[in-house]
């Protein structure tokens, strides 16, 4: 069997890649995709801990289900905001939507 540490390291790698994507990308949709990567890394961590360490075995999986639910709601709302931004400013790049920036 694969030890727990493998899952943790894999999850850390995915999460860091997601952090890089959030910080480096310009398009709001690409930033959202990187956020999805980070959420996935977190869910994987929850489930790995539940499968290896939790005697009740199931709390981590429940957490992952709620993460997926909230992520689905978040994607719907965020994409609506992106479409609204694109309609108003003709761009989906976050660094061009800088009206509040001095």
């Amino acid at each position: 069997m694969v030890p727990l540490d493998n899952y943790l390291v894999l999850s850390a790698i995915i999460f860091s890649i997601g952090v890089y994507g959030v910080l480096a990308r310009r398009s709001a949709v690409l930033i959202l995709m990187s956020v999805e990567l980070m959420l996935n890394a977190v869910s994987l961590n929850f489930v790995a801990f539940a499968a290896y360490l939790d005697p009740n075995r199931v709390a981590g999986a429940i957490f992952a289900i709620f993460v997926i639910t909230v992520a689905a709601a978040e994607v719907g709302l965020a994409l609506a905001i992106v479409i609204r931004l694109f309609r108003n400013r003709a761009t989906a790049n976050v660094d061009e939507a800088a009206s509040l920036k001095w």
Partner: protein
Amino acid sequence: MTTEVLWWFFAVLIVGASLGVVAARSVIHSAIFLIGSLAGVGAMYVFLTVDFLALVQFLIYGGAVTVLILLALMLTRADVTGLPEKVNGPQAPFAVLVGAGLMAILIGVAVGTTWPGNVGDKALNIPIELISQKLFLDYGPPFVIASVLLLVALVGAIILARQEEGE
């Protein structure tokens, strides 16, 4: 033995596809790499014996979320000129530093910690009946709140994306 070989295959697939998401020049390529990465995580759930979660992952992430993202990409294509757009901001080198530093810290902590319990040898089986019992009985109130959240998000998304009169 076969399990471990398959595990490493999927781990490499996930990391490669995730790198593709953040490194691809074209947004459509990023979205397709994202499908690969999410499906790989679904395979990881199979290895962790949470079949139900793998199913949910494939359906909701691999299907619904990526289709939604592709739809938004189609609706927000600004590069009608055909010129390749700059996809990364000027802060990208610093983002590499932050990402690499965070990765080093997280891996160091994850490997360096001694976890209590039956660590290291074997993943416990998580049966689907147990998940349903817990979800609908013990975690009933959060379940209801999550339903309300989904409804609110649905209504909010419709109102935000609606074409208003006079626009």
